[in-house]
């Protein structure tokens, strides 16, 4: 039935749309024919031609209206009218290019900001990992802190005993030295469980993946699976690479396959260069790491994450219950090693809640601010549109008087609003796509494979266009009431200048709202910038300026055990001998370098150390004697470490103030005191150093201890070199010195300030993001105030002319012209600042040391808003002052 209907109707519709003139002619001819016959009929009855014609028209009951009804019957009037509105709208907008450009640019900024923020939100949080059936893939988290770290024995138990997952995979992120025959280099790897690829349900692009059947005990699976990207850049897409042997930390490994291009590992930010089986952990970490022992130690939670697909029909709650029952059993069996073994599930892409929670909070905050920007832009455009509608009240009145329906007039105004919003939306979207593409290939940290995969997808396009349309309706709606209340009689009679004071209130309100929002943005971005400035100058517990960091791994160069320790001493001596070097220290990992080793410590009285009775969890560093001097860490009491603290000497440690207070009650109480490690080793505190930052800048003060290099050797080596020489020259000298010691040693040299980029990266990103949003807020408030001030000056130009002619002073003229704008500005700013203070509490969560009550921030925000106001009203004020009364009065 419907099909048949369209069989008849469609040709008619198409004809009505595209052969409009012909259709109109037909209609006219048909009705004229009828009228003609009617006239003939009347004349036959004896009426005059004029009378007959009048009678015929009367019978038709309004020829034009009937024609319009016939047109309505065609069912395409909506399209026709819309096209007409669009044509007219484009004409109107082209007639005021300044207004159009400002409006489109404003909206493009606001929509662009939203699209970018949403694009990042979409890429990082909404979009799942690029693996099949990612919706059922969960990371397994443990304990109250929802940590994803797990030990190998615990992982095996969970993998083999659970009944809820289709396999559980594990992976760890690590760095190895790769030697393909020439030029040894460092590479990032995932040490993955054998079942890793099978659990993720991925097929190889080339060759094969390693799988569970390759695991025959420790160091039994020397295989490498390359990522597509690494294969492309380092093996030039060579398909013959499969079967080739390469050396990882001097051990032979065979490349067995290449992963598909879309698979870049199971952590969003961090894509590896290749994958290697975790059972070969010892070869990858070096003999000194005692890798086999690490794999066998239940308490050693070194695996970064475990994860798996839920079985069909198993709910997350059931899976958690299943895991918890395994956990309860493990707790009972291994009370010494397994503390709280309760489980939760999280998103694998952001390492569960580890990165997921702060990322979600931050993105939600940004989205909120971006939304505010859009709202401010809408308020801005709304008041512009209201002003235009007021200027066009004569036109509207005339159209109403000539019989145009209000409906049709409103539709026309809406069409203009939508045209602008779509223009702004498309421009903003284009800008954001460019920015997002750039972000996606951005490598923020030179020596880490960190990337931000936020390529725009259809979600982003849809959201941007929907936002554009919604905002078009929002600001298009502002003048509606104005049009609906238009009394054509009054306006045509009095002219459009006779606007009452009341009409302004909606616009005033919008301006206040807009300014308030902008003040919030400005205040919050200042809070963020100030927070960063402070975090850069806060006390790290070491002094990064005038210091070089040289990172190398002796294990990668084939040193292990005592050989490594000997080499480390050689390195220190050799670097110290370079002219201009003040001091040289060595540490297994410097603080604030994206990582750190923590360990549990126990009081000396603890008879049987177990997870539950530890006194503290502390950062642990293996340091050389001169490390504190080189790092610029102040010794508060006791002595630093010395080369005499070797394997034959009693175990010694230097702890930080927090450690001393937490374990011993005070700094003096700590000196000479003993504490225990989990394996029962007693360690004596020989010195106390100042507190510092260890993992990131926003952490609460953490305890830390520094143990002598010779008592707990480590192949991971960071030299800290303090010198007043130019650091670049020094770096070259250090490089040639190290090459003289061993040409095969891979070394990465940078200044400590540069190296801190990693630790400061989150705050920097936050600051830049908030700063940009604040800047946009500032721009919007300028355009808003400028629009309002310029409009009110232009409206009152004649009045101002009269005042000047009557002898008003400059000050009075300005008072008249701009007093209102300034009052609104002050009101809006005050409201915004109050809101900003409230909002900044949220920011303090993200940005280090962001205090909203900071007087500098408050004064700064007030000053900025004032400056913006002055700037925005400057041109209108000049115009008001330069009014030439005689010319103006002559013109009117």
């Amino acid at each position, binding site marked *: 039935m419907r099909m048949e209907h369209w069989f*008849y109707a469609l040709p008619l519709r198409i004809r009505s749309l595209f052969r409009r003139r012909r259709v109109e002619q037909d209609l006219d001819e048909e009705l004229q024919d009828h009228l003609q016959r009617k006239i003939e009929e009347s004349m036959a009855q004896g009426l005059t031609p004029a009378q007959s014609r009048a009678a015929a028209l009367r019978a038709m009951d309004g020829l034009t209206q009937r024609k319009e009804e016939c047109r309505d019957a065609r069912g395409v009037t909506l399209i026709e009218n819309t096209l007409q509105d669009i044509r007219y709208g484009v004409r109107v907008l082209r007639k005021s290019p300044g207004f159009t450009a400002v409006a489109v640019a404003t909206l493009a900024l606001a929509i662009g900001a939203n699209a970018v923020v949403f694009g990042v939100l979409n890429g990082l949080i909404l979009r799942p990992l690029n693996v099949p059936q990612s919706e059922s893939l969960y990371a397994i988290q443990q304990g109250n802190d929802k940590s994803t770290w797990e030990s190998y024995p615990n992982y095996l138990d969970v993998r083999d005993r659970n009944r809820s997952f289709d396999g559980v995979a594990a992976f760890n992120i690590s760095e190895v030295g790769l030697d393909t025959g020439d030029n040894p280099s460092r590479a990032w790897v995932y040490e993955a469980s054998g079942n890793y690829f099978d659990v993720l349900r991925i097929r190889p692009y080339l060759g094969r993946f390693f799988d569970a059947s390759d695991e025959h005990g420790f160091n039994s699976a020397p295989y490498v699976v390359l990522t597509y990207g690494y294969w492309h850049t380092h093996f030039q897409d060579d398909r013959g690479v499969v079967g080739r042997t390469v050396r990882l930390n001097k051990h032979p490994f065979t490349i067995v396959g290449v992963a598909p291009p879309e698979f870049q590992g199971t952590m969003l930010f961090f894509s590896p260069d290749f994958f290697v089986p975790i059972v070969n952990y010892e070869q990858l970490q070096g003999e000194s790491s005692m890798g086999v022992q690490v794999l066998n130690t239940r308490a050693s939670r070194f695996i970064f994450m475990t994860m798996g697909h839920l079985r069909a029909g198993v709910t997350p709650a059931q899976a958690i219950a299943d895991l918890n029952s395994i956990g309860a059993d493990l707790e009972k069996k291994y009370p010494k090693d397994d503390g709280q073994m309760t489980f939760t599930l999280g998103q694998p892409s952001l390492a569960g809640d580890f990165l997921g929670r702060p990322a979600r909070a931050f993105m939600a905050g940004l989205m909120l601010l971006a939304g505010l920007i859009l709202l401010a832009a809408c308020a801005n455009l709304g008041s512009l549109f209201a002003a235009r509608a007021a200027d066009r009240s004569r036109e509207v009145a005339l159209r109403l008087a000539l019989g145009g329906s209000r409906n049709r007039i409103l539709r026309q105004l809406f069409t203009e609003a939508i045209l602008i919003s779509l223009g702004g939306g498309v421009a903003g979207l284009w800008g954001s796509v460019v920015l997002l593409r750039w972000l996606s290939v951005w490598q923020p940290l030179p020596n880490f494979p960190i990337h931000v995969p936020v390529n725009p997808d259809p979600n982003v396009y849809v959201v941007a266009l929907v936002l554009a349309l919604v905002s078009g309706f929002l600001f298009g709606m502002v003048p509606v009431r104005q049009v609906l209340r238009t009394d054509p009689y009054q306006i045509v009679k009095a002219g459009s200048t006779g606007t009452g004071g009341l009409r302004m209130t909606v616009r005033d309100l919008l301006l206040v709202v807009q300014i308030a929002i902008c003040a919030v943005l400005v205040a919050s971005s200042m809070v963020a910038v100030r927070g960063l400035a402070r975090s850069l100058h806060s006390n790290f517990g070491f002094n990064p300026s005038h210091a070089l960091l040289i990172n190398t791994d002796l294990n990668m160069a084939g040193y292990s055990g005592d050989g490594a320790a000997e080499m480390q001493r050689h390195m220190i001596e050799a670097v110290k001998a370079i002219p201009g070097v003040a001091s040289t220290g060595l540490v297994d990992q410097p603080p604030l370098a994206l990582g750190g080793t923590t360990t549990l410590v126990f009081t000396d009285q603890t008879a049987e150390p177990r997870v539950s009775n530890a006194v503290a969890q502390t950062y642990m560093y293996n340091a050389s004697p001169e490390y504190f001097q080189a790092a610029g860490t102040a010794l508060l009491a006791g002595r630093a470490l010395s080369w005499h603290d070797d394997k034959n000497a009693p175990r010694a440690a230097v702890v930080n103030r927090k450690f001393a207070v937490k374990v011993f009650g005070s700094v003096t109480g700590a000196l000479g005191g003993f504490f225990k490690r989990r394996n029962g080793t007693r360690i004596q505190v020989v010195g106390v150093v100042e507190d510092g930052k260890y993992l990131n800048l926003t952490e609460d003060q953490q305890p830390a201890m520094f143990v002598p290099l010779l008592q707990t050797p480590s192949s991971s080596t960071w030299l800290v070199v303090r010198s007043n020489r130019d650091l670049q020259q020094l770096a070259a000298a250090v490089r040639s010195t190290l090459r003289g010691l061993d040409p095969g040693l891979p070394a990465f040299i940078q200044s400590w300030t540069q190296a801190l980029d990693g630790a400061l990266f989150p705050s920097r990103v936050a600051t830049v993001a908030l700063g940009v949003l604040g800047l946009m807020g500032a721009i919007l408030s300028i355009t808003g105030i400028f629009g309002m001030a310029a409009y009110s000056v232009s409206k009152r130009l004649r009045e101002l002319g009269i005042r000047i002619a009557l002898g008003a002073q400059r000050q009075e003229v300005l008072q008249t012209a701009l007093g209102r704008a300034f009052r609104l500005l002050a009101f809006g700013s005050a409201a915004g600042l109050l809101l900003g203070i409230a909002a900044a509490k949220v920011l303090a969560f993200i940005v280090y040391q962001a205090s909203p009550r900071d007087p500098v921030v408050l004064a700064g925000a007030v000053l900025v808003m004032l400056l913006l106001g002055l700037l925005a009203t400057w041109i209108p004020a000049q115009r008001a002052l330069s009014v030439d009364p005689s010319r103006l009065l002559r013109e009117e």
Partner: protein
Amino acid sequence: MSRPSDLVQGTLDLLLLKILALEPLNGWAISQRLKTVSGEVLQVSDGSLYPALHKLEQEGWISAEWKASENNRRAKFYSLTRLGRRQLQKEAADWTRLSNAITQVVRLEEA
């Protein structure tokens, strides 16, 4: 507005379909035919006739064709389509049911 109030809503469509079911006619002839067949009881204004015809055409119930009329003038002739014939049957049946029901109600004896 253009539809006379004494013409029950929707019945104009039925009348037009029925008239065109007998033979294809032009607008003027339809207006004449309406007057004669209903004995001038049903007053359909000239004004409302054409919008109604155009609506029926858009529904696909009638189709139009320009032909020479009886006095050799070019005129638009309307004829019923297959779809229109089905619509006519439906509307006629509806009308019979409705008028029967109303007739019964009207004939109820007052107590």
